[in-house]
């Protein structure tokens, strides 16, 4: 009897073996993914910095010069790898799109969570999900055939430019911000609303002074997510922004973003050449920006989490 018990306790059962195998499989998947992710980051890092190490180009020339013509020279004789026009372009369309989209998104989200009936909210939910699902090339196509001529008609110029990019991106990031703002508003505990109403607040005062204020970290996160999407969007923007790597003079002058120059240029350069390395530096810049957006989201999340 004793021996039997001893044997039972000291041999691995079938289920214990399964457990080990499961853990092993899971870890292997993880390692594979880690290798891929780190590989990508490493590759971009090496490629993106080779312009500075191999071609001996100063970082300041890359970040602050306004002449973009890799391989060529600026009028003063420096290498023309200035990414400033694209940096300005990317930030302009991103910030403007977020600025325009936020009030619309918050308004829609308030309607969906606080005001509408369940059915109305359901319909709107489907509509926003539909907007997410439309491929960006379709947005770009619509932008090209509708927005660009409209801008040309209303504001003059060619119609291509930051304004057209902003309008297209506004529609594209709207659903992202809406759905995340809806989540943020829903996570505001109902007892805040009750307390506010019980103090004699109207529904609108409750929404404005309690719900929105309590949800502000979540709404901010939503906006940053939208901005990250706008910053990284390539195809649709490329189709409407005009793709001229020049400092934008105004909202309707053709310009470029980091992503649009990248997509336009990557097929036309030879691996290892300066032209190619300059594009990789743009990619590195994009990677760093998305890292920055991620960091921002984490910071907001940590500061604004509801304490229970």
């Amino acid at each position, binding site marked *: 009897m004793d021996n039997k018990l001893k044997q039972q306790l000291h041999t691995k059962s079938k289920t214990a073996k399964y457990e080990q195998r499961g853990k092993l499989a899971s870890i292997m998947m993880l390692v594979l993914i880690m290798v891929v992710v780190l590989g990508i980051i490493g590759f971009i890092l090496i490629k993106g910095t080779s312009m500075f190490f191999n071609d001996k180009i100063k970082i300041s020339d890359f970040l602050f010069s306004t002449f973009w013509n890799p391989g060529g020279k600026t009028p003063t004789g420096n290498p023309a790898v200035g990414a400033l026009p694209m940096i300005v372009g990317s930030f302009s369309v991103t910030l403007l799109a977020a600025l325009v989209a936020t009030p619309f998104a918050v308004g829609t989200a308030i309607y969906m969570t606080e005001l509408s009936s369940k059915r109305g909210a359901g319909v709107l939910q489907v509509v926003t999900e539909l907007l997410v699902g439309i491929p960006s090339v379709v947005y770009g196509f619509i932008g090209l055939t509708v927005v660009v001529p409209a801008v040309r008609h209303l504001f003059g110029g060619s119609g291509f430019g930051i304004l057209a990019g902003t309008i297209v991106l506004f529609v594209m990031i709207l659903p992202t911000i809406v759905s995340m703002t809806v989540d943020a508003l829903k996570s505001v505990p109902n007892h*805040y609303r009750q307390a506010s109403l019980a103090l004699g607040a109207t529904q609108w005062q409750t929404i404005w002074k309690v719900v929105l204020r309590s949800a502000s970290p979540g709404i901010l996160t939503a906006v940053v997510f939208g901005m990250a999407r706008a910053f990284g969007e390539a195809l649709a923007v490329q189709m409407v922004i005009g793709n001229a790597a020049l400092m934008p003079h105004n909202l309707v002058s053709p310009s470029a973003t980091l992503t649009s120059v990248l997509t336009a240029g990557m097929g036309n350069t030879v691996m290892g050449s300066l032209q190619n390395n300059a594009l990789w530096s743009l990619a590195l810049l994009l990677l760093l920006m998305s890292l920055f957006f991620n960091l921002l989201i984490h910071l907001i999340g940590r500061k604004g989490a509801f304490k229970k």
Partner: protein
Amino acid sequence: MAEVIIESKQLDLFYGYFQALKKINLQFETNQIAALIGPSGCGKSTFLRCLNRMNDLVDGVKIDGEVLYEKQDIYAPNTNLVELRKQIGMVFQQPNPFPFSVYDNVAFGLRLAGVKDKKLLDEKVEKSLRQAAVWEEVKDKLHTNALSFSGGQQQRICIARVLAVSPKIILLDEPTSALDPISSAKIEETLINLKKEYTIIMVTHNLAQASRISDKTVFFMDGQVVEAAATKKMFLNPEKTATADYLAGKFG
């Protein structure tokens, strides 16, 4: 006998087809503490929420009968809910301060009413926090997030928040059930001090608490009032056997 400030007449309440309150006739007098007691689901919280129409927020509620506040039917069609809830404030079971500073919490109602004068706000906030007996604990941390205080302190901040809008009646829905005994004792003390200026109606699960601080006790069961009487009389000499059994702990 003090004057009646709020009373219900033949009050029925339905959640869909379920009748949660049946022909409730009750009167509450000024400057008294009334305790509503009874087993879970007996309708005492539902009744409390009728008194400032918080039940309006629940889907599918239907209410018949009258609630007269200072002789005015608060279920009359043209009732101004905002004004009503300013005069009949409510404190909830879970301490629910807004995730703002203590100051912003207490000043919330005043700011809604359009008070902008900083001095007046300061005065009112201090007075309300003193009345709620939490001033000494928070006076140096008025601009700290209210959620960083203990449950008992949060609940007293909530009471101060209600006091700041100068209500006539304060409704409390099991205000101490989520709190430890020491915090509860502080709240009870606060309530006894408040009854000089306010009328207090509270739901409580704690019979000892009802007997300690209330002037009048109402015993609810199955959506009906079984017995309503002066607290001393009810606890010493209840009329109905159901009341006696409940008070003796035979059920509930």
